[in-house]
């Protein structure tokens, strides 16, 4: 490194990144998530068997066992003899991509609407808040169930742009008929999901737009668009990022819950939720069975939440991670001392 360049003070995002990197659990969880997602992207190459291959000769094979016809199954097979490991990888692609698209789209919609409502105030704000309040009186879960059942029973009736189904069938390695279903499930989640983001973004923007720097930018003749996106939005970013990660795990859990009850993604398309629903009905004869799809749900939702927690600490300097770490180290040292004696 050349010594002639003056040392530039670290930017805010560099600081955040540094703080996040020092959060060891969160980093580990991030690596795990990335690994799972990349593995699922290469599903056709990693998976040892075709996804939907049914064979009654090898149904109910226990994990790490060989079936009657001599095939080996790391995580066993289900009631139709489909290999669990194969399906879990494909399901990771479906479940994680669903969660990612849902949260990304609904965050973008929520941020834009919340930003506009909070920035302009007056009747725009009034309209948006009333609308959000109205939507949130509906029991979300009931709406999800109803919408899910409508969508699943009248699949062909709802027109979906061809490009969307093609995109999803490419993203999730599923055929286009299955993709239609997934697109609709995603749409339902987005429709119900943006309100939360919009509400809290609006709240933050209300206070940020009163700040002096926004006012001075306005005085300097900055356009509304410029003010919103260069002054207001970046300052509202940290909570948005945290809510994005927490939204990921929320959607993941909600989608698997919906599929678990039979209203989400339907059987030949694997999703952790619907795999669990099937495994659950065989739990008395094969207790290991529900554990297999449970594991990824458990790992992913925990990992995402830990990443979110790490991000929250990294983004919010008020949480004194330093103090916390010192305390933890002191505690560990004390325990080590005691175990020595």
């Amino acid at each position, binding site marked *: 490194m050349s010594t002639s360049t003056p040392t530039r003070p670290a930017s805010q995002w560099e600081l955040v990144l540094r703080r996040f990197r020092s959060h060891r659990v969160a980093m580990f969880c991030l690596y795990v998530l990335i690994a799972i997602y990349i593995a699922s992207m290469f599903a056709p190459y990693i998976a040892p068997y075709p996804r939907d291959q049914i064979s009654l000769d090898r149904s109910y094979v226990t994990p790490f066992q060989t079936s009657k016809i001599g095939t080996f199954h790391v995580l066993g097979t289900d009631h139709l003899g489909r290999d669990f490991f194969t399906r879990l990888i494909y399901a990771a692609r479906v479940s994680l991509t669903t969660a990612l698209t849902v949260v990304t789209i609904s965050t973008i919609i929520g941020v834009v609407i919340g930003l506009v409502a909070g920035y302009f105030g007056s009747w725009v704000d009034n309209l948006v808040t009333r609308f959000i309040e*109205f939507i949130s*009186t*509906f*029991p979300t*879960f*009931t*709406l999800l*169930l*109803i*919408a899910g*059942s*409508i969508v699943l*029973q*009248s699949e062909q009736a709802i027109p979906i742009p061809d490009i969307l189904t093609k995109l999803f069938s490419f993203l999730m390695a599923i055929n286009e008929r299955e993709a239609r279903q997934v697109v609709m499930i995603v749409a339902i989640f987005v429709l119900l999901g943006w309100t939360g983001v919009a509400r809290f973004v609006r709240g933050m923007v209300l206070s940020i737009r009163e700040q002096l720097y926004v006012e001075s930018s306005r005085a300097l003749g900055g356009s509304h668009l410029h003010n919103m996106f260069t002054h207001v939005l970046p300052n509202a970013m940290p909570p948005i990022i945290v809510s994005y990660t927490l939204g990921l*795990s929320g959607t993941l*859990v909600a989608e*698997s*819950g919906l599929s*678990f*009850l*039979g*209203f989400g993604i339907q059987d030949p398309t694997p999703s952790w939720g619907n795999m*669990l629903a099937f495994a*659950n009905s065989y*739990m*008395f004869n094969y*207790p290991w069975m*529900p*554990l297999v799809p*449970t594991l990824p*749900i*458990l790992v992913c*939702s*925990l990992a*995402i*939440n830990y990443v979110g*927690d790490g991000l929250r600490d990294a983004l919010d300097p008020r949480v004194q991670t330093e103090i*916390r770490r010192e*305390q933890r180290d002191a*505690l560990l040292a004390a325990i080590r001392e005691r175990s020595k004696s």
Partner: protein
Amino acid sequence: MATFLIRRLIQMVIVLLASAIVSYALLYLAPGGPTAGLRQIQQGGRNTITAEDIARIKARFELDLYLPYRFTRWLAGFPSGPVTIGGQTFLADTAVGCAIPGQVRLRYPDGTSEIIEEGCEQYVTFADLTDRRTSRGIIFGDFGSSQVILRDRPVSVLIESRLPYTLQLMGAALVISILIGVPLGIYSAVRQYSRFDYVMTTVSFVGSSLPTFVIGIISILIFAIAAKEAGLPYLPPGSAVALSDYTVPLIGTVEAESTLDRLLHFIMPCGVLVFVNIAGYSRFIRSGMLEVLRLDYVRTARSKGLRERTVVLKHALRNAILPFITLLAGVLVELFGGAAITEAIFNWPGLGRLLVDSIERSDYTVAMSLTMVSIFLLLIGYLITDILYSVLDPRIRLS
């Protein structure tokens, strides 16, 4: 206060009406219902189902009426027949629905043909409505009759049979988790960074990030299946009562439908809900307490020489618990609506499962009734928390 209440009540009525319209429209879009599957029956058996049969079934569930009339009849039991003013009846012949739709056979050039419904062969008029047995309308507390699950029986009967189970489960879970979660939150805030605090925050972090169905399934695997195989006392894995007597090690024979039997069935679903609730509540109380304990007035209280106990429980807790009240706004809904997923896992015959069943089997009168009642309860919950808040926190004035 009075003006606030009046304004809020008017708002509530408007919101309720609007959400009734929206959810009714949504369910109207949904396929299925009592006429679904009739064609399959027709193909299978010797009895052919005629257009009149379908019309009769539709009439029984009011499916032959046009949507606006159907909605108002469902909402308020109106119109219930032709209008009579001074002995004269009006509108008796005006059509309000279509009993038998006209059928047109379309022949395509390639030789195939298709029958589509077009126009109407026989209309339903206001005069026909007089003889119909109607519900008095949901706003008068008449939910109508179930279409599929308990065909022709009033929805209220169905709800009444499930409500005790849900109330029992949700009520007990709520009380226990507040009794445990609040003290845990306080204690771990007071002893911040202690070992107890670390364990507590980690457990509640894990607890609140795991979905209920995962916790439920794992607890069935441990406490019902593994415990039974190991010869330890085990818990029944599902439903609310046993069908026949069974023997549990160390406890002995448990009579079906006895109090002990009910208790054993109750422990696991309740435990799962309590665990999840505690995780949420204790985190909430902990962060609230931490914020308050930093404030000047707490320091003042300490420097006055008050006992720590008094400072924490009397001075700090009163402010820290305020936001907790907003969390409880949803309690009424929860008590009524139950926990659909937990109930599904443990086969608990509560209202949450009824909702799932009713949507799954397209029994839309039941689903609508449950939805409307929960929206109503949610609005009441909001109102109560607003009032409670202003009573407990003098800084807030309702206007």
